[in-house]
């Protein structure tokens, strides 16, 4: 029994309850929430240290207790390298999100304690999704995270929040229910095989290995649709721009930074090992969707007029890369995909936060309402640019390592798909730089800036403008992100070393070997 | 014994009750018709019980009677309170639960 994961799970839940009771003391509530998230971060560091990447155990830090014996359901938790880095990412992003949402203007009648309580509740749910090693427990957490997110969007979001929250909820619920059918299917299949049904992931992997391909394909599809909605793959993506645009900035960071990764994580943890034959059979379909997603998402990102929707569409393109890496079946591509999940959380999270900071100054989401903002807020402009560079995968930033790994690892197996997706690199440069040009470069213009600055005369004079550059809190929120972007860009080895063995194990569960063999080792 | 007469009577009573429920407007009358239907069923149950020489049907009959008694208590109370607020015992007048 290892208590680290259980502590990681329960701590935010306790925090959530405590913060919820601090209604009316918003200031204290914020500090308490931040405190809980920092302790959680420390716990994540403990988990990271306790995890041994060189061990041959598939899952580590495991713990288990009986839950519903009739159906063979255990409350069991554990992590492999993939889940570990995701949990670490959650723990890292949470203080950043709380700091970023520190002085957000909430809609009328909403209290900050409610907001932060929901954020912490989200954290428990997300950790649970990644730590669960029982398919049923995974399903429960998969659905449970919807609830706090629904309220975060629906109660604290933008003007069109009700619509967006409903759309998000229905989409995810639909996927979840389809997945439930497959979960039941898994139980039945295992009962046929073993006499007593089970939903334990590790047992199911061995059970499903020899299941007939047709069974695998049906069950695979159930999981796949749920994850493809979450991830989101084109054409199941339309909830994301709405939800991303309407969600408050903090929730938006969690939404695209972590919640969506449940989908890609699910591909790796459930689709591939449980249904190896189906995965191989359907890989071309998934890869086509992934590559279409890259190009389609990029082109739509180019065409957006709303900054938050822009970020959402760039994410759709990035998820295409992740899916490409997962279904290309090589250790480089798989490792790259997992690293991409982490990096996307960092860089898109930062992009979301920076867009939020732009909006809190200009009060508008539309790109056309801005222009030449770098003159008024040079530091904000610079940090937006850094986030953008990370998004377009410039070498030296974290995303380059992951995008490079995905592409170089996919090429040996899937040269055509890989070459088409490299076009996404050019389009990424286009959408990032074009938005940067329209918002930050050129002469100061745009209704948002001019009206806030108090008329055209004052806006030209940065000293007297009402629009101020970043304050200390905002700098403190963005600084760790920038640091991580650079560190992971130059020295990703510690993270790669954790991920690679788990990808190797996943690939051997699928039964494929690396296309480019390791020579002499 | 031949159950035919008993069953015919039961069917007749049930039909009377059903028609009454469908065509009458007064809540009390509808209510009585429901009771008629229940008792028609009771008659059938008892008949078959006697025919097969088993007690199951009679036990079921008792259950129906108990449920009917409970129903009378709840139902009459509802009808009373509706009548008090609306000054009408017509079932067609209380249609608040429509679309």
């Amino acid at each position: 029994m290892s208590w680290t994961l259980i502590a990681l799970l329960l701590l935010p839940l306790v925090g959530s309850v405590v913060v919820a009771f601090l209604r009316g003391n918003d200031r204290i509530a914020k500090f308490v929430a931040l405190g809980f998230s920092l302790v959680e971060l420390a716990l994540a560091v403990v988990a990271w240290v306790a995890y041994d990447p060189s061990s041959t155990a598939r899952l580590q830090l495991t713990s288990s207790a009986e839950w519903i014996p009739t159906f063979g359901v255990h409350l069991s938790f554990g992590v492999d390298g993939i889940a570990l880095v995701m949990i670490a990412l959650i723990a890292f992003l949470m203080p950043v999100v709380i700091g970023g949402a520190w002085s957000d203007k909430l809609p009328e009648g909403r209290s900050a304690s409610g907001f932060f309580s929901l954020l912490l509740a989200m954290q428990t749910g997300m950790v649970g999704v990644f730590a669960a090693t029982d398919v049923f427990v995974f399903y429960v957490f998969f659905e449970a995270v919807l609830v706090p997110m629904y309220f975060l969007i629906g109660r604290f979001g933008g003007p069109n929040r009700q619509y967006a929250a409903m759309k998000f909820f229905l989409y995810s619920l639909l996927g979840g229910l389809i997945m439930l059918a497959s979960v039941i299917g898994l139980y039945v299949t295992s009962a046929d095989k073993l006499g007593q049904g089970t939903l334990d992931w590790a047992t199911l992997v061995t059970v499903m290995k020899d299941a007939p391909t047709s069974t695998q394909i049906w069950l695979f599809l159930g999981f796949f649709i749920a994850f493809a909605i979450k991830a989101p793959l084109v054409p199941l993506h339309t909830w994301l721009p709405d939800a991303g645009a309407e969600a408050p900035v903090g929730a938006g960071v969690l939404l695209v930074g972590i919640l969506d990764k449940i989908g890609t994580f699910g591909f790796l943890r459930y689709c591939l090992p449980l249904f190896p034959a189906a995965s191989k059979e359907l890989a071309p379909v998934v890869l086509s969707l992934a590559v279409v997603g890259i190009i389609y998402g990029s082109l739509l990102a180019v065409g957006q007029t709303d900054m938050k929707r822009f970020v959402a569409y760039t994410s759709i393109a990035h998820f295409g890369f992740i899916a490409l890496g997962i279904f290309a079946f090589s250790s480089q591509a798989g490792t790259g995909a997992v690293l991409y999940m982490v990096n996307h959380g960092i860089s898109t999270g930062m992009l979301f936060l920076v867009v939020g900071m732009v909006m809190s100054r200009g009060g508008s989401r539309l790109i056309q309402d801005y222009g030449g903002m770098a003159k008024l807020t040079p530091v904000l402009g610079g940090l937006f640019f850094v986030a953008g560079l990370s998004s377009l995968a410039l070498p030296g930033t974290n995303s380059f390592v992951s995008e490079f790994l995905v592409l170089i690892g996919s090429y040996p197996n899937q040269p055509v798909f890989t070459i088409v997706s490299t076009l996404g690199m050019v389009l990424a440069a286009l959408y990032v730089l074009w938005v940067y040009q329209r918002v930050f470069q050129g002469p100061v213009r745009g209704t948002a800036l001019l009206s806030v600055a108090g008329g055209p005369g004052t806006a030209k004079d940065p000293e007297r403008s009402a629009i101020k550059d970043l304050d200390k809190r905002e700098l403190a929120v963005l600084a760790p992100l920038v640091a991580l972007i650079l560190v992971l860009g130059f020295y990703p080895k510690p993270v790669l070393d954790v991920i690679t063995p788990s990808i190797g194990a996943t690939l051997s569960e699928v039964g494929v070997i690396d296309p480019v063999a390791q020579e002499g080792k | 014994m031949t159950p035919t007469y008993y069953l015919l009577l039961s069917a007749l009573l049930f039909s009377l009750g059903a028609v009454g429920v469908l065509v009458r407007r007064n809540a009390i009358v509808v209510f009585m018709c429901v009771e008629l239907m229940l008792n028609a069923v009771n008659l059938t149950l008892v008949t078959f019980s006697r025919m097969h020489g088993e007690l199951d049907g009679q036990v079921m009959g008792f259950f129906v009677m108990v449920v009917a008694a409970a129903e009378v208590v709840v139902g009459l109370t509802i009808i009373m309170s509706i009548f008090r607020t609306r000054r009408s015992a017509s079932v067609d007048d209380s249609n608040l639960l429509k679309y």
Partner: protein
Amino acid sequence: MTEPVAASGLASLAWLLLALPAFGAAVLLLAGKRADRWGHLLGCATIIAAFGYGLALFFTTIGQSGEERTSELHLFDWIPVGALDVEFGLRLDPLSLTFVLLITGVGSLIHIYSVGYMAHEDGRRKFFAYLNLFVSAMLLLVLGNGFVTLYFGWEGVGLASYLLIGWYQYKPEAASAAKKAFLMNRVGDLGLAIAIFIMFNELGTTQYTDVFARVDELSSGSILAITLLLLLGACGKSGQFPLQAWLPDAMAGPTPVSALIHAATMVTAGVYLIARSNPIYNLSADGRLVVMIIGGVTLLIGCVIGCAYDDFKKVLAYSTVSQIGYMILAVGLGPVGYALGIMHLLTHGFFKAGLFLGAGSVMHGMNDEGNIRRMGGLAKYMPITFATWALGYLALIGIPPFSGFFSKDAIIAAAFGEPGWRGYVFGGVALLGAALTAFYMTRLLILVFLGKPRWKELRTSEDGREYHPHESPWSMRIPMIVLAVGSVGAGFFLENGHRLADWLEPSLGPLEETHGAIGHTTVAILSVALSVVGAAVAFLLFGRKPQPTERPLRVSFPVRAARADLYGNALNEALFARPGTWLTRALVFVDNKGVDGLVNGTAALLGGSSGRLRRLQTGFVRSYALSMLLGAICVLGALLMVRFS
């Protein structure tokens, strides 16, 4: 190719070359306004220190034997996953050291020049931060010991170039030019990236040592693909056809940037890439032929357009395009040309940087005026600028004994050495280019420095300030003088006794001799004669009668085409930009109305049909009872049917 040894002694500190400028950039960016007072000094100090270290390293290496001259310095494992092991390391060999000296040397001069040139700019420290960033990335590009580290530097210099072209980012055209440069570079980068993928797929490695040692394991198709893809990368970075359009636009940046990045160093990275990959190119004659064609086409395009422009810096930019065309042509010749390409790259680095700095000096003294038709007769007002510029001019058009003569003639002669029709075609193109170069450069010289001072008639520049041409401060004059010395002597120095070719032999292999249809001496005489003719024609056209201050509009078709960049931009616009815009708009529409419409449509359908269905709930208890009765009858009927059928 010589096997590298592990770096030791002084060379084990080679990481300082990257770290010093990077440290400068980091400090300058983080310190903010506090660094305004000393920022430029720190910027200069780090580069000069790097140059000093580079020199020391160079002299140590010269003292070593040929086998010891190639060494590698392993810094750390960068991206190790499975069979892929990308290490972050440096390769110190004659080729990279040559570039180190060029980059840090010219870089130092241009840093010093910028102290004066940018003195009146807000945020000068940021400018130095970006310049430092550039130097660091460029050094990584040439020092990296694998294709991925090269790619890192490759995109890093692209970033620095983007930031510096967009230095005046409040001007929309500067911002657009910066974006265009980055995008067109990225198109080229795709080529480099895919080439790396192929190498990994076939060889399982991307490090120079392993790739070059096992290059014969590659299939011939892969070799051709790699050579063409690397060429695509080179085209993007070096402004070669068909990706040349960004380079003239890049002149929107400050002049020191144009001199350092867009003349002397970054744009020559393509030449470096091909020379560095010589073991691959040696195996593919077809690949090299394409390289030569691209070089030849570009050198003509650059010359032709350069003849028609009226913008001082843009003429020089097209001149750069065409000179890099020469270098690409040279490295495309293979073992007979790699060293020649590098030599022209070095001499060009001197004289073109000098020419750009001279242009900057002129514009600095002329209210930032760039239109040469508004200049004239400036030699009297800026004697030192004129003198240094004229030396660079003579070097560029290849008049002996200036440096351009040695490097360019060697290329032309080597081109004539190609077998069969190729020799005549490429040699002829190169000769024609030489004549055109002399023509447009003479035109530039006359319009700017000689003739009547047309600015006197205009009195003020377009922004209303009066013209007061004056010589630039010493911090700007010294770099120009140093570069002028280089443009005079570098060619002879490097050519004499095959000094450069012998030095580069461990990296590029021995320089092979060519014996073409036309001998070296004949080529030399021909090219000098053609240059003189070109210059004379220009003098006849522009030097004898006063020139108008507005560009003449009624001109022949070739001039119009050249002014329109030979319709390169129009073609890009028609082929990519406009269809791209339409596609994007159409997709946004499809996504909102089509894909999302389907989702919302499903929701609306459900909502609508349930709206209809709920009408069934009439609220009449008796109708519910009837439906229950009917339902019961149906069930009964069904049971009876099953029973009795």
